């Protein structure tokens, strides 16, 4: 490395004192975020395990219940989240290339798409409440699948609810990144926060990529 680059790496204002250089700091932060995402795989994994077991035990009840979900909402939300992953990836690119205005714009769009997702989700929850599909509140279902469909809806609310909570946290993180970007904390040598915030955002998207078919698309071909 050129002497100026070495100096920048070891004395940059973005370097925390316990690290030797920016590269070590960046690698540590990235590894830390990946390790955290592994914990999230296992966290949601518990729910997917419960889902898999009960779906294998009660396939018809699950299909009947899945039919009641608002498929256009789920599909739209999938598209919304995938788009937000695109804008997120482009935001990282903007940060890497020092395009501050583009970075700010893309972060705002990502946040907005996240809010759209939550809005549609809220509408769905309201619909489900009106249709008496919320266990513990005012649950009712056709008698043949009443009992076991309750497990489906319980899973639906816990899984999508926890996912929505992670979306809210993600939006919070992005707002923080937005503030840092506006204030100029993010530079071409210190863009890693955007990168690892992006990792979190993409992970939340991936969880939804699995939730969508597993919850919304069971037995859609049949007429219950």
């Amino acid at each position, binding site marked *: 490395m050129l002497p100026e680059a070495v100096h920048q790496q070891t004395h940059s204002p973005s370097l925390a*004192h*316990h*690290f*030797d250089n920016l590269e*070590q700091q960046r*690698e*540590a932060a990235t*590894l*830390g975020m990946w*390790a*955290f995402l*592994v*914990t*999230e795989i*296992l*966290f*949601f*994994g*518990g*729910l997917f*395990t*419960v889902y898999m*077991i*009960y779906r294998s*035990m*009660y396939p018809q*009840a699950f299909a009947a219940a899945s039919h009641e979900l608002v498929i256009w909402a789920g599909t739209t939300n999938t598209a919304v989240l995938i788009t937000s992953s695109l804008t997120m990836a482009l935001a990282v690119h903007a940060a890497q290339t020092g395009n501050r205005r583009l970075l700010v714009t893309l972060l705002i769009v990502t946040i907005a798409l996240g809010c759209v997702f939550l809005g549609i989700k809220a509408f769905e929850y309201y619909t489900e409440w009106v249709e008496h599909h919320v*266990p*513990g*509140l005012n649950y009712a279902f056709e008698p043949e699948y009443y*009992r*076991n469909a*309750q*497990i489906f809806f*319980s*899973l639906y609310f*816990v899984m999508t609810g*926890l996912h929505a909570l992670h979306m809210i946290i993600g939006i919070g993180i992005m707002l923080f990144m937005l503030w840092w970007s506006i204030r100029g904390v993010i530079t071409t040598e210190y863009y890693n926060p955007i990168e690892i915030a992006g990792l979190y955002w993409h992970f939340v998207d991936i969880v939804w990529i699995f939730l969508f078919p597993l919850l919304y698309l069971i037995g859609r071909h049949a007429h219950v």
Partner: protein
Amino acid sequence: MASSTVLTPPHHYLNDGVGIKSWLLTRDHKRIALLYLAGVTFFFFIGGAMATLIRIELITPAGDLVSDETYNKLFTMHGVMMVFFFLIPAIPAVLGNFLVPIMIGAKDLAFPKLNLASWYIYMLGGLFTLYAVVAGGLDTGWTFYTPFSTVASTSNVIPAAVGIFITGFSSILTGLNFIVTIHRMRAPGMTWFRMPLFLWSTYATSLINVLGTPVIAITLLLVAAERIFHFGFFDPRVGGDPVLFQHLFWFYSHPAVYIMVLPAMGVVSELVAAGCRKPVFGYAFVAFASLAIAVLGFLVWGHHLFVAGESVYSAMIFSILSFLVAIPSAVKVFNWTATMYKGSVSWETPMLYAYGFIGLFTVGGLTGLFLAAIGVDVHVTDTYFIIAHFHYIMVGGTIMGYLGGLHFWWPKISGRLYNEGLAKIAAGIIFIGFNLTFFPQFIVGYLGMPRRYHAYPPEFQVLNVLSSAGASILAVGYLLPMIYLMWSLRYGKLAGSNPWGAVGLEWTTTSPPPTENFVTTPVVTWDAYQYDAQQVEGHVA
């Protein structure tokens, strides 16, 4: 012995900033370790108080001290406090936090602010659970089995579940911090195979923390959700299965016992090397055994469900795997023993705890093998045999390792030496008290005395009285170190950088160390445990 450094440096981490704010807002891993020391000690005493009441009740066959419901709360809170707030965090958060950066030659952990946050999260979780204790207790057993915990129990299930959930994040973040630190912040020349074995154990423990804890988090969340919304995941009335809870619970809680014992094994490796002035025999085998324990430990959870209704075929597979998981532990015991062979064996207090660990862990581990055999397990499940088995490992193993490590590194942490005579006596009292408490429990359990009952048939009384007598001796044994260690802080002899003449990066820096651990970043060109090289106090050749 000649020393080129003053016994206590003028500036070190303990006097670098004074006042409560400098402690509560610290990012220094060494101060955070001491914050954890205060926390785990506090929760240990609460768990110990519960144990005291249990053992007093069990002196007589009749349930005459407390009602059966109160007794349920006593053993539950004893388990919850001891497992989640003492055994799981103690060695990693106290000794690990203090030693990991120093042992690898770094200035701090990878994420110091996260480290402080971990402590606050730990204390917050502890306070939630303490609230559950004070507000009437929890009576489900530390195992929270459904459907009692979700439907029938009228005790404070949700605050306790929330408390444990929150503290789980502390474990996850600490594990994460250790993993990244060990991967990315080793000093120049400190390759993986030059690391002290304590770091291998800590690394393996951190893997379990990161992979396993999220599962108990989601499981307790489901219990709380079921309790509030009557969802039905574990409710047979809507087609749920209570045994599914047990699968999910033990998927974490079995590896959790390895979170509890692996760090203690790491400590023992350090103690045995230092106490015998020899490299640990078969270093690579011990290192890989730590990883093997972490991996295999995730494959055996079903042995807690042998009588719960899991299929016979699952049970058989879990039984075989449970036999296999004993192998890496046995490798470690053999290697420590081989290290002692022809070593210059010392009898200082840390070594006494190490020997205690090796013997008592072996007993606990062997009885675990008996339990891995389904036929035996069917007979002794839910008896005192099980209780004795896991206390031999948790107390005879983990706590001995913890105390041994605390004594070994106390001079480094505090800059002072404790009273060796008193310490030896305390170690002896603990050893005698422990065995008197728990060995009779093997017998009385095998004879059929069930666990979690506050009354028992009169023919078991003699053994119970022995056990309670042992418990009172054990209690004295635990109080003594508290007293003489605190006393040494003010009146103990100054330690100097290397009072044991041990090898390791921590012994090359001052006692107490400076805030940034080393004056200059060490460059490591030697293997661990180079005891055959010439040594002078404070230097490593």
